[in-house]
């Protein structure tokens, strides 16, 4: 018998199960795009048949980091930029868990940039949602890695001299196998993309545009947006890396030039996840490592058996 019976549990899931029953109420500002991510997840998870006990959400710091305070799953609210290394190890230790990491643009693309590149490169089987509002929110509006060039803030009073990071191209180049962008202002698309990302076997990166009504008042707040899959103006193959890259380039340029393009950009179902690669090499056990500690019959190897070479 499994020690983790919530994993794979088959029952009717009530949407309300993902809302904490007692406290806390979200502390996000009225009109914040973060509500859009929360809503999309609350819709997507039950539709995928997942129960709150089999989902682990791992967050970083900032407004985005509070996601798992308001979403009732197993949660690990970590530290600045570190959600990914925590999340990928949890997945390695117990493959049965549905692991969703989330962070903000400062948290995920700035301080956690190194982990972002390497997690995408390794193609861990997990979902990574980045709340991208182009600004540091909880520390009161400083310039972030995705702020447009010239963005003025208290820490860059003359405007930013830096060009914004291109998150979609970055994760594609690093090796992510599902890359999409959606926006809180388009809840239906957001839900569908989140569902696809969770179902994808590999590293799914969703750049989630979340408007910041407090610190980005002058920004266009992602309206009007265009869904590239719905629009007849864009025709490209999401399975073709080169075409996806070109579309991303256009999207990432256009975000700061008047048009907000969203949609799925790259889907690669052929590349095995990191877990599968390691399994092929015999580098991870067939059964989740975490199960073993509950198995009374498991024969643990001892260092005593390794001493031959030391004699």
């Amino acid at each position, binding site marked *: 018998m499994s020690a983790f019976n919530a994993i794979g549990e088959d029952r009717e899931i009530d949407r309300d199960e993902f809302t904490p029953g007692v406290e806390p109420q979200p502390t996000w500002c009225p009109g914040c795009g973060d509500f859009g991510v929360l809503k999309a997840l609350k819709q997507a998870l039950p539709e995928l048949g997942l129960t709150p*006990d089999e989902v*682990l959400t791992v967050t970083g710091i900032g407004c985005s980091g509070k996601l798992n305070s308001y979403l*009732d799953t197993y949660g690990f609210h970590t530290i600045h930029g570190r959600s990914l290394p*925590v999340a990928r190890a949890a997945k390695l230790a117990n493959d049965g868990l549905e692991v969703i990491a989330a962070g903000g643009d400062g948290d995920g693309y700035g301080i956690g940039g190194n982990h972002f590149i390497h997690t995408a490169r390794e193609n861990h089987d997990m979902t990574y949602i980045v709340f991208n509002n182009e600004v540091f929110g909880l520390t009161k509006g400083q310039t972030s890695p995705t702020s447009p060039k010239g963005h003025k803030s208290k820490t860059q009073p003359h405007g930013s001299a830096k060009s914004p990071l291109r998150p979609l191209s970055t994760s594609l180049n690093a090796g992510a196998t599902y890359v999409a962008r959606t926006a809180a202002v388009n809840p239906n698309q957001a839900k569908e993309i989140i569902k696809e990302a969770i179902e994808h076997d590999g590293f799914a990166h969703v750049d989630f545009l979340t408007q910041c009504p407090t610190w980005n008042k002058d920004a266009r707040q992602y309206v009007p947006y265009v869904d590239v899959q719905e629009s007849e103006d864009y025709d490209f193959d999401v399975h073709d890396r080169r075409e996806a890259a070109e579309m991303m380039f256009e999207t990432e340029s256009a975000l700061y030039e008047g048009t907000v393009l969203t949609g799925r950009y790259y889907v690669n179902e052929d590349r095995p996840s990191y877990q599968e690669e390691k399994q092929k090499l015999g580098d991870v056990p067939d059964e989740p490592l975490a199960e073993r500690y509950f198995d009374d019959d498991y024969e*643990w190897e001892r260092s005593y058996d390794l001493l031959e070479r030391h004699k």
Partner: protein
Amino acid sequence: MSDDELIWRIAGGSGDGIDSTSQNFAKALMRSGLDVFTHRHYPSRIRGGHTYVEIRAADHEVQSRGDGYNFLLALGDSFARNPQEEAFYGNEEIKPLSENLDDMREGGVIVYDEGLLSEEDVAELDLEKRAEENDWHVYPLDLRSLAREHGREVMRNTAGVGATAALLEMDLEHIEDLMEDAMGGEVLEANLEILHEAYETVRDEYDFTHDLRAPSGEHEREQALLSGSNAIAYGAIDAGCRFIAGYPMTPWTDVFTILSQNFPDMGGIAEQVEDEIAAAALALGASHAGAKAMSGSSGGGFALMSEPLGLAEMTETPLVLVEAMRAGPSTGMPTKPEQGDLEHVLYTSQGDSSRVVFAPGNVAEAYDQTRMAFHVAYEYQIPVIVIYDQKLSGENTNVDVSFFDREPEPTLGSTLTEEELREAAHDASGKFQRFQHDVEDGVSPRSLPGQKDGRYLATGNEHSPVGHISEDPDNRVYQMERRLEKLEAIREELDEEHDSQQTYFGDETADFGIVTWGSSQGAVEEAVARLNEQGHSVKGVGVSDMMPFPEAEMTEFLESVDEAMIVEMNATAQFRGLMQKELGRYGEKLSSLLKYNGEPFEPAEIVEGYELNVDGADEEPTAQVRIEPAAGD
């Protein structure tokens, strides 16, 4: 100095096979019934540069490197030459001979490779004159040609071992066996030929003028030759650890490598990741999800782990880290030992933060205390650090094989099963009360993601019993006090249910005490034994518990002596500072003997430190050590 022991030093260029050769020779000596202890000196580069390994072997227990040495095999540094052979890089080639003469004991034996070390160079060292003055017995031998003749030049090592065996009148049997285990085919044949040729040449053609012979001994039980890194890795395995994440950094890399090589075959997981923050965060994530996990690093890499360390404490996630010290600050001396990271490890991370820190004093303690680290981490849900150094990491000693014949301990400590979870406290919305206020020993049992009805939020923010972020003053006080309470409970368990992790030695009735910690322990033990043999009355203790500090034990020890000298390998007397902080007094009783030149203590330096401390406080020590007097002196 008595010569009932052999201290064999093999010196050459880094990359010349010094390590593997000495490892095999140490094993051969162990198999012949002797106790051995190795000491490794190497530069921070891959090929070339002066390196040596010392093997001390005796028919009695050896706990430390010796004072100097009595047999030098100087191979020359083959990497001082480029492949065209005519070009030389500085004066590196002669260093294996020149750099080692100062430590050579009277009556010692020197074999040098006259195939590589030219006559003129050797003449410049004044070797003849010095040999006469010190009664050294010098045997030049063309090891290089001998090796070339039968195989390849790199086999000079083997020729040197053959010459050694002949000069010490050792049986070749164990050496041959070990060679047969390590290699095969033509390589083995060539090596065996070289071994015999060198052995016979020396035996038949040289007149021995020296007295030194290999000691003989016998072991009652089978022995294994292990380094501190082996012991830490094996302690982790037997504690049920099956997840390791790391980033390479000397000398921590040894533990990381050993576990990375063993885990796949044991169904464990090893991850080499992008940096040390990630490494510790991975260990944390795996532990959170229900694996026994560890990470580690050396000084600079450990600095990066300070964030995840604090997160582990706040979220009460079990975490074991090992910290392999090397000389600092910053990158310092990457391949040299020092005990300079104690304060770094004790106090890093923000807030009123606490963790458990053990500092094993030798190979056996490294095994024991790593197991204890996992026990404490998973039982009390607190980060535990095993701090050791480059010296303990790389030194090899023989240990009774039976020492390792113990049951593994693969338990997750204070973790609930789903059955237990059903009975556990939940809030009105059905969330598990993971961080209860009022629990015994401060430990509130945890659940694992994927278990039914165990949902909670682990967060680095201060939090309520179910894990909601909370700045409620009452809750803050409850949670803080509960986390701090664990340290007292751990102290109690260490005191009551386990034998003390401190190691006591010497004359119990003595009123002079020598206190040390970590890897300096062996040299202090030997020094104390020697002082007592010389008619002094001295006792010593090697302290392993850094946090929680063994306050009662140390108070008792210091109350029983008039004076105590603290021996440690750093310049700022960090452990002495810890003692005074934890005990709040005794400043007037405590002096320090410090060494921080990149070399570990030799027992004689500690003996001299004692003598100067007692009789001649005004005199300067002869070695590169510093005496820091007691407060008020």
